[in-house]
């Protein structure tokens, strides 16, 4: 039983009238992994996840969640998974502890309510009624409810959409702590930094298809793809041009962008040339494509809705302004 993957999906499709919401998705998520399904709004994330959760039927393909088919064995599956939906309420007049105890009572082997409250950091709000919680606290309650049944696998559908940066950080810490409990987590998001920070592996979904998959550091050939050298000669530089293969037409900002075959060698030659002439290349940068670049390239430049808030900055080095795409996986 434990040898099976937590999630195994092959050839999943789902259409609504003429729209192929999910157009052939394959996924494999190992037990204990935090896996992020990253994609812009309308890419098919939620439809895919809701099929896996058992909320929607599928048109074709095979789905195995913890060894169960959510289409046929939904009832058995329900007690093994926890679901945090995109936006769901709870009865507002119950307290945090009552709410968690109520949901826990639906499961055969629940986790003690106080333990769950501790995990999500709501101990101070234990006896507070739900209607008095802040947005971030309600989201933690959502996670707590999903944990109440002590599930093996958690689905988190856009767990931080609409959050301010500090509430997002709070939510992230909760998700990180789930991994420490040995849970498998499948989360959907359209925030690059969220996928990068939380996930062991990421799949990028666009127009109903997985267009890239892998650890955030290497997805879309990110670790190999087109690492750039980027520099600008100081104004009034004399002493001629750098070697011909190390220069080129400057971009609008006056920078020369290079994609060398051998980065080490090219850097050595470029800096050697500059040292010989006493030129200080203080603008020199080595730029790796960010996850955002890879993502934008893979999803045809559709940014995730609202994905530009302040929390995005600083996630991945100095590459923000270079929109040079990584190598494309899809054709």
């Amino acid at each position, binding site marked *: 039983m434990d040898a099976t993957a937590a999630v195994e999906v092959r050839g999943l499709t789902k259409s609504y009238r003429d729209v192929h919401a999910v157009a052939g998705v394959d996924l494999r998520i190992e037990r204990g992994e935090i896996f992020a399904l990253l994609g812009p709004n309308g890419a098919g994330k939620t439809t895919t996840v809701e099929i896996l*959760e*058992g*909320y929607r039927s599928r048109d074709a393909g095979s789905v195995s969640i913890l060894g169960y088919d959510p289409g046929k064995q939904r*009832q058995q599956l*329900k*007690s093994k*998974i926890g*679901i945090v*939906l995109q*936006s*769901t*309420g*709870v*009865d*507002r*007049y*119950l307290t945090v502890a*009552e709410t968690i105890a*109520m*949901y826990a*009572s*639906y*499961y*055969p082997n629940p986790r003690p309510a106080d333990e769950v409250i501790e995990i999500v950091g709501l101990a101070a709000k234990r006896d507070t*009624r739900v209607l008095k919680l802040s947005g971030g606290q309600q989201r933690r309650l959502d996670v707590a*409810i999903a944990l109440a*049944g002590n599930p093996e696998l958690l689905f988190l559908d856009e767990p931080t959409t609409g959050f301010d940066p500090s509430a997002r950080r709070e939510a992230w810490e909760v998700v990180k702590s789930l991994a420490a409990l040995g849970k498998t987590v499948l989360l959907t998001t359209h925030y690059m930094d969220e996928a990068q920070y939380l996930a062991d592996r990421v799949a990028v979904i666009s127009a109903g298809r997985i267009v890239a998959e892998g650890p955030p550091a290497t997805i879309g050939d990110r670790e190999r793809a087109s690492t750039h050298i980027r520099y600008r000669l100081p104004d009034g530089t004399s002493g001629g041009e750098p070697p011909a293969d190390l220069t080129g037409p400057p971009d609008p900002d006056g920078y020369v962008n290079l994609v060398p075959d051998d980065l080490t060698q090219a850097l050595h030659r470029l800096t050697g040339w500059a040292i010989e002439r006493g030129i200080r290349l203080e603008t020199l940068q080595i730029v790796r494509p960010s996850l955002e670049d890879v993502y934008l390239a893979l999803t045809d430049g559709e940014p995730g809705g609202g994905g530009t808030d302040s929390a995005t900055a600083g996630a991945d080095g100095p590459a923000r302004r270079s929109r040079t795409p990584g190598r494309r996986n899809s054709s």
Partner: protein
Amino acid sequence: MSTTVMTLRQIRYVNKTFWRNPASAFFTFAFPLMFLVIFTSLLGNGTVSIGSLVVKTSTYYVASMAAFAVVTACFNNVAISITFQRENGVLKRTNGTPLPASAFLGARIVHAMLAAVLLVVITVAFGNLAYSAHVPTGLTLLRFVIMLVVGAATFCALGLAITAVIPNADASPAIVNATILPLLFLSGIFIPFGNNTPSWILWIARIFPVKHFADGMQAGFLGTSFHWTDVLIVAVWGVAGLVLAARFFSWEPRA
């Protein structure tokens, strides 16, 4: 874990939320008593003829408002609370847990029925003290209780069924009232039928369950005759409501 145990547990939580929501508790409980006082104050000194029987208007209203209380506590309450829970995602969330649908909905229904019974007891006690309404005993009481339970269950089932045509929570009080209020009037709940009641109204009253239910309840108080056909017609409506609910009920908010 049996569904019965889960249902009973769930009732406790439904009960907590019910009483902690001041608006729902107030309207459900205060309305029938308020109407009872208003109607008997306005019209209480007259008499009502039912067939050959003449009864005091105040006594008539005790029976009527008891029936009205059941309709509010069951039909209105179930329809409005379920649409609200559907819209804010409680239903969808619950649908993702192992709690059987029958336990979740069953708890809501049983709770509404218990509230209805409590309301009837209060209304009758109040009617007895304030308007010396007759309290049924013996076989009459038994028949009365059967009608009460069948009626309460039926109005709960119809409340579930009507959620299928309610698009969202904002629309739900309006739709619920627009369906039930005219029917309450057309069933003689607020204004007793006289000898000149138009036949189309009598026909509507004959087709829909409210009048049959009210007649069954009145038999307990007024000494009118009790017809098992009333119970049967009300029960048929209940079954129809259940069938429609089973077919069209949605766990997810409507777009």
